[in-house]
């Protein structure tokens, strides 16, 4: 999947992946896609809730080798 900005949140614990994602999104335009890679096991449900709460779209999420990759479309 194509993306406009990449956020490496590996090694960061809650709440930093969400805070870093929010910061990245504020620097992006509506419709652009942010890729986030996290190792925080709580980040799957956190990003689902974050998108539900903020209206940004969670395009996809995947897990491989204890890394979680998310694609968020900025609202």
């Amino acid at each position: 999947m194509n993306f406009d900005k990449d956020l490496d949140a590996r090694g960061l614990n809650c709440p930093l992946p969400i805070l870093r994602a929010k910061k990245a999104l504020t620097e992006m335009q509506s419709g652009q896609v942010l890729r986030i890679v996290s190792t925080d096991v709580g980040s799957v449900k956190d990003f689902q809730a974050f998108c539900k709460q903020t209206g940004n779209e969670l395009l996809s999420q995947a897990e491989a080798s204890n890394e979680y990759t998310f694609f968020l479309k900025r609202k």
Partner: protein
Amino acid sequence: MAARKICVVVVSGTRERLQMAAMAASVAAVSGIEVTIFLSMNAVPHFVKGATADAPSEGAFGDLLVKKKAPDFKTLFRQAVELGGAKILPCSMALDIAGIETDTLEPFVGEPTGLTAFLNAAADAQVWTF
């Protein structure tokens, strides 16, 4: 349905409570929830300019937060303001009792506020106390 407005009352000066308050406030704020943080009692001196985030631990976990390099609570509170538009309001009574001048507080801390104004803001909000 998720709360749209949260008031966080922070009276403790210990690391664990300040950390939990900061984590909850910052995540709520960046998630689009209106967040107001009311600082009073032992929490206030930590928000004087130049004061470190080296708050005393209540227990072993507080020490672990330092050892594991968790983001400090002052950074998280600042991000709640900068990234999520949270308001941090110091208690006017606490400032007076502690002899702390408003212009000595960190720039991300707002205007001194009395309980009446805070209670008005909290009237239609969830209130969390730390």
